[in-house]
């Protein structure tokens, strides 16, 4: 997928309803349930092995850049809007992107010496996404809780979320992904249905990389 360079300001780039997005081509990313056997603890595996979860099948991914910023527009079916975190049983809907930080980074949460950078948006904080880094299941650490600007809407049973950041991070550090015009990049995705108490590894994820090229 080509991430085209467009001549719009950051506000338009970050707006899921902006006209510029209707011209962008979407990649249909298939999602599957993260297997119960892959869950990091016996409790979670036992609790969820016979329950349906991770049932979101597809994510429509669009991406654009302007002179200084890159934005990803993620859209998926979510019949109910779960954005509250008042009761102990409230889990907000969420979506995440995973960028490898090395050639060898495994697409499932990275691995030892092969970390991945994560952009994680959750519906209880609709206007920002955080940047985590992970080197394996259960290891993600928050690097910057407000690294990524976000704008979201829930309409007609669908979430649309735009995550947007400057190409070169204003706070560069290990674990933060950086973007350069002309580069190839890849990502995987995950979606959590909060209404089904989905969190952590109880999710739908894309089992293969989405290959992208960032227009110079």
């Amino acid at each position, binding site marked *: 997928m080509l991430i085209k360079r467009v001549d719009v300001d950051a506000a338009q780039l970050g707006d899921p309803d902006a006209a510029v997005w209707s011209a962008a081509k979407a990649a249909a990313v298939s999602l599957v349930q993260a297997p119960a056997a892959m869950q990091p603890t016996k409790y979670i595996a036992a609790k969820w092995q016979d329950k349906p979860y991770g049932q979101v099948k597809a994510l429509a991914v669009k991406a654009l850049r302007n002179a200084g910023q890159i934005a990803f527009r993620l859209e998926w079916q979510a019949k109910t809007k779960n954005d509250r*975190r008042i009761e*102990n*049983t409230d889990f907000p809907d969420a979506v995440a992107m995973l960028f490898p930080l090395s050639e060898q980074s495994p697409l499932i949460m990275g691995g030892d010496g092969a970390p991945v950078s994560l952009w994680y948006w959750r519906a209880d904080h609709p206007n920002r996404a955080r940047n985590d880094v992970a080197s394996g*299941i*259960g290891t*993600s650490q928050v690097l910057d809780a407000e690294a990524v600007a976000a704008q979201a809407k829930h309409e007609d049973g669908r979430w649309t979320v735009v995550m947007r950041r400057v190409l070169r991070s204003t706070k560069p550090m290990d674990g933060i992904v950086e973007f350069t015009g002309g580069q190839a990049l890849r990502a995987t995705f995950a979606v959590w249905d909060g209404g089904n108490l989905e969190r*952590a*590894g109880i999710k739908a994820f894309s089992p293969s990389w989405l290959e992208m090229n960032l227009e110079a």
Partner: protein
Amino acid sequence: MNEKNVIGRELEGKLHQPTRQLAMVFDLNKCLGCHTCAISCKRQWTRDEGMEQQWWAVVNTQPGMGTPKNWEHLGGGWDAKGEPRASKIPTRDEFGDAWKFNKDEVFQGGKGTVTYLKPVTTKGEAPDWGPNWDEDEGGGEYPNSHFFYLPRICNHCTHPACLEACPRGAIYKRADDGIVLINDKQCKGFRFCMEACPYKRIYYNHVRDVGQKCIFCFPRVEKGVAPACARQCPGRLRFVGYLDDENGPIHKLVHKWKVALPLHQEYGTQPNVYYVPPLAPPSVDMHGRADPSRPRIPLEYLEGLFGPRVREVLALLEAEKTKKARGQPSELMDLLIVYKWPNDIFPDFVRDPAEL
């Protein structure tokens, strides 16, 4: 994954245990249900925003629904084969929310004559449950109505279900004293621990998005000061010490005299809080005639909480009590009486917190 603590975990068929284990024994014959333990804990640890509804130390009336409501029927812990038992997250409503009151409306809003002071939950609803909603209701029918108090904290289990359930390794059991703690920098508020704990003693902090629970007052303990709930207890029923200290009251009550029993040991987590079960007066009939063969608190009920040794323990307590009453020596009664406070009740933690 490599940073995950292995203490308290079963690896390759072996349960990894701490070198020492701190424990508490609660003598239920002395608990007067005053909640000073709960208040002293609250004052010390749970006053921040997001902790309003948290009561790391609670006192439940038994028979009763407990805190959270109906917790004994929510699951969690391990089954007989050592497999995790499925459970659910106890809700804010089941724990009992921290209520707010319509003080402005009544006192400032000019509605003092048309409405009345009433509580509302965080959701804005009228509460129909609270942490001690069924206090002193108990069980049985007149003239054999009965109840007793059951103080509860985190059990700092030897095989903690919370620790093993956490996908992030955020819960660890300290090697030197067996205290179970949640590392709130590692915790992401996923709440699997709240489900897996069969005693339902973990709370969720909605402001900080983390799980929180009793910490056995580790900063006090490290300085030789007893946990707040134990130090402040007016009934002086909370013994604190190391399980392996043969000269201390914990070892004597749990292992030597064997009168202190774990709560619901069938949950499989090997709790490190033990209870001396409550003696009860005999049942009486409608004419007030006592039947000493039937204690007013049914033995079956106590066995349901503390296991099959209840009968034997109560008989021993009666026998030793009789000896003591006759002027004969009884080490067990002397232990339970706690002649010298604080030395006899938490000998390793006698330091006055005011001296810190």
